[in-house]
């Protein structure tokens, strides 16, 4: 009886130790050697994941975006004609219509090499107020943010990201 009890204790101890050592083995088995060579996206949609609005009435939804550290995107009103503004849209046919979008006021910055050239940008976090009108029901809205990002010395091509929001309209 004592022997059986001892064997059970040994088995439990072994299992517990094995469970705690598995993460160490998993690190070795995994195929992620270190940091990725891929650049992080310059802008990403942060929240909300879901909103509840009244069906058939325009409702304001605050969409929060984050700009990667060290980078900026042109604001909706970038000051120079040749710069591409940040815009938000909702494709047709998603059960939700974008009535209007309000953009925050950006910050004026200038490049170190061109102190006289002012550009109006968003950096860190910014919020777009989207007034949406939805038919009754659940709608997975894939809004589109179009922007063009730079840092102080170089620019990336214009690109879009999806702001996916579950809109529940009752």
């Amino acid at each position: 009886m004592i022997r059986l009890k001892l064997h059970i204790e040994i088995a439990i101890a072994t299992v517990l130790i094995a469970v705690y050592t598995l993460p160490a083995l998993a690190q070795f088995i995994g195929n992620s050697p270190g940091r990725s060579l891929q650049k992080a996206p310059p802008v990403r949609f942060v929240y909300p994941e879901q909103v509840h609005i009244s069906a058939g009435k325009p409702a304001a939804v605050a969409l929060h975006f984050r700009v990667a550290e060290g980078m900026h995107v042109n604001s909706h009103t970038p000051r120079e004609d040749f710069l591409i503004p940040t815009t938000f849209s909702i494709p047709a046919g998603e059960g939700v219509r974008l009535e209007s979008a309000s953009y925050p006021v950006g910050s004026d910055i200038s490049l170190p090499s061109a102190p006289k050239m002012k550009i109006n940008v968003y950096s860190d976090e910014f919020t777009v107020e989207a007034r949406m009108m939805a038919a009754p029901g659940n709608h997975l809205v894939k809004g589109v943010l179009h922007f063009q990002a730079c840092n102080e010395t170089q620019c990336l091509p214009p690109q879009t990201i999806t702001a996916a929001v579950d809109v529940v309209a009752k």
Partner: protein
Amino acid sequence: MIVLFAVLFILAIFAWAGWANWEYRQQAAKREAATMAASSGFAADPDTGTVVFHSALTGKPAPDFTLKNLQDQPVSLASYRGKAVMINFWATWCAPCKVETPWLVELRNKYAPQGFELLGVSSQGDDVTPKDKTAWDKDKVDIAKFAQQEKLPYPVLLGGDGISKPYGGVEDLPTSFFVNRKGVVVAAVMGLTSQSELERDIQKALQD
């Protein structure tokens, strides 16, 4: 005794897993460093110690290309053999590109008598493709307007995205490649640098 042996055995496995993980990461880091050395990336300049852009094309023949200019005429890199050439990837929506444009105009005019030419290769970005005629035409109008405003004395070529891949996948703008008279890339820069640095690379292309 058996319990002690079992515990020691498990701990030995744990220690071995930790060592193996460390060893794997060391080898992976070495492989990554070798890959970076063979491809484009940033590295410390051996002379100055500052971090500079290194292109995998440096020391190799510049990939040939033919693009159309604003007058819709084909222009090929090969037609400039015997001249030093700066291939400057830029875009109208790129503020740093606009900053360096006056420098490029000045340097091109200064070194043209010595057999130097600059090719301004416009990169529209993912937004604009030839299939989207409206956007493509608008982009051409914007480029022509910019070229006129800045009084660009050098050829402006359209459709730079089409030759991005052989040049290492140019995404960040501005990016420039300096090609000597024999058609070999002798230097490359990515991002806004300085007029003096651009001039140094032009002189390098003229000398080699």
